[in-house]
């Protein structure tokens, strides 16, 4: 177990390093000159100023020194400086990231709470009406573009029947999320439905797999009721792969959040990323990419650890 954990930790560090290399390569592939981007479009008339800028920020160094410098900055939490917003990427993330975490967190928990019973019912009533109904439901929401879902929700619940505001909560700070929670409901519903469509499929197949296991037959043979077998045996075992699914689906959920945030004009990290893409503000794009990637790597590490703890059958020693 300890060997497995150490090994897995080492792998994660390597993966994060690779992500930084990749991101750095992208940063260098970007056309345009950071000096001109920051000093203004007319600065090309003043080569002295550009040279000074390059010297100050290390852009005159060879690429490996630049990488090293950049990596050291990353380790101290310096994610770079926005080319357009006159703010450091770290401080921008400080205001936008908590909002995304809040939205994604609530939606993921809701999706999970709904996906478990839905998946179990589908698996138990396999090929019955309920199964087909939820199958159709999850396929439609999986196939439906996230922005269409958002717009339809706005159309129905903000315009035709004006219960909720059409926009996410606006304004600085996390406080507005609570004072104006009404505005958060449509974005949450939207992201929950998309995530639910994905999770319930996995829950269904996970339960189906477990229903054919030997221990189910054993439990039934020992006289356990259907209900007990389902809840005490099948459900508990079926939840284990969900831990991995959660870790792995983080990038997907965050991508879904990007679309949802831009539909509802919700000032989270995805919205920040999208605006930065439109403005070619690369330090923001790459800073966010690094943050998301590290979160994913850590997430799947935690998922694997949880897996090893939850499932005694898993023997990682031989690997």
């Amino acid at each position, binding site marked *: 177990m300890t060997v497995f954990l150490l090994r897995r930790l080492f*792998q994660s560090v*390597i*993966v994060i390093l*690779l*992500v930084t290399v*990749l991101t750095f390569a992208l940063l260098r*592939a*970007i*056309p345009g000159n950071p000096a001109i981007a920051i000093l203004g479009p007319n600065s090309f008339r003043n080569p002295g100023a550009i040279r000074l800028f390059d010297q100050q920020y290390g852009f005159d160094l060879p690429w490996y020194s630049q990488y090293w410098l950049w990596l050291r900055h990353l380790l101290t939490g310096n994610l770079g400086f926005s080319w357009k917003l006159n703010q450091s990427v770290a401080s921008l993330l400080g205001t936008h990231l908590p909002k995304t975490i809040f939205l994604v967190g609530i939606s993921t928990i809701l999706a999970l709470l709904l996906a478990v019973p839905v998946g179990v019912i589908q698996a138990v009533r*396999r090929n019955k009406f309920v199964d087909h109904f939820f199958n159709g439901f999850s*396929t*439609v929401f*999986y*196939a*439906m*573009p*996230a*922005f*269409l879902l958002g*717009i339809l929700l*706005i*159309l129905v619940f903000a*315009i035709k029947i004006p219960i909720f505001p059409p926009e996410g909560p606006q304004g600085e700070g996390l406080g507005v999320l609570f004072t104006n929670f009404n505005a958060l409901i449509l974005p949450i519903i939207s992201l929950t439905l*998309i995530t639910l469509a*994905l999770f319930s*499929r*996995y829950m*269904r*197949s*996970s339960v*189906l*797999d477990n*229903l*054919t296991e030997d221990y189910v037959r054993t439990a039934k043979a020992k006289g356990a009721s259907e209900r007990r077998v389902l809840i005490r045996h099948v459900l508990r075992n079926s939840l284990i*792969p969900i831990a*991995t*699914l959660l870790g*792995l*689906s983080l*990038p*997907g*959920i*965050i*991508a*879904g959040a*990007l*679309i949802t945030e*831009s539909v509802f004009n919700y000032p989270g990290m995805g919205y920040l*990323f*999208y605006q930065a*893409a*439109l403005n070619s503000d*690369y330090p923001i*794009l790459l800073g966010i990419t690094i943050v*998301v*990637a590290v979160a*994913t*790597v850590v997430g*799947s590490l935690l998922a694997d650890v949880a897996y090893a703890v939850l499932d005694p059958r*898993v023997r990682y020693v031989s690997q």
Partner: protein
Amino acid sequence: MSLASVPPELPDPENPSATTGLVTTYDTDVVEREEAAEAAVAGTLPAGKPRSTFRRGLEVFVENKLALVGVGIFVFMLLFCFIGPLVYHTNQLQVNFGNEFISPGGAHPLGTDASGFDVLGRLMVAGQISLEVGIAAAALATILGVLWGAVAGYFGGVIDSVMMRIVDALLSIPVLFLAIVVVTLVTPTKPVLILVIALTSWLTTSRLVRGEALSLRTRDYVQAMKVMGGGSRRAVLRHIAPNAIGTIMVNATFQVADAIALIVALSYLGLGIRPPQQDWGGMLSDGIQYVNDGYWWLIFPAGLCIVLVIAAPIFIGEGLRDAVEVRLQRR
């Protein structure tokens, strides 16, 4: 958010594609065994040669009605987009502001859009782009993923570790993010989009194929070939990749769905194919600007096309997975 990109990573390298459909295959197997037993009792063993694994797979696939519906929808969409314009002629090149926002009916069965284009005709032309990019990107991603995964799994050891860590690193970045960054760097034309999507979505395929390759490389026929002096190149291309074909095909269908969803998302963000060309995502995101004006025909036809064309490959993929299980059972 994608089916193909989040495989339930169970530690089961023998059979990474197996998730659902176990019960189906058991059922048919039992029936067949019973039939064979009856035939044996009656003294009339089934004549002719035994049915091939392909035939049995096909039978399971055909039994799955949803999968057939999926095939039907996909074929219909292909005909609609590529043959449709030959039958239903519309002007999709010149803007005609005298004709904008005509309600469906008469000369325009689905009305016209903000530029006066006939919506039905536009759906056909836009669908060509969605389908071409989706299918081409999925094919390219599959080839790349199969080669990468087969090589990593076949060689194992350090090569495998290095190759799979690269995959892990790329997988930790959302595909949409990567695509957005790349698309801001290069003008998104059709070939560029195909390449971008392929280069960001081969990762899951490679993981699945690696899992298969890890178990396939120890099989007797691969070992025998090596003893006879065959090289690694031959092992990967002639033995490992073809034997993982079931997993690969199932994954490829999901890839098509995800690729189409990705261009739709990019189009919504204004980073997809550039005008005058348009894909379904572009039509839909243009249409929803008029959501308050009641121009439903600018939203629902395109929306329905997208949902159908993404759902169809998923149905097909699930049917294929059931069919592949039959093959796996015979191994």
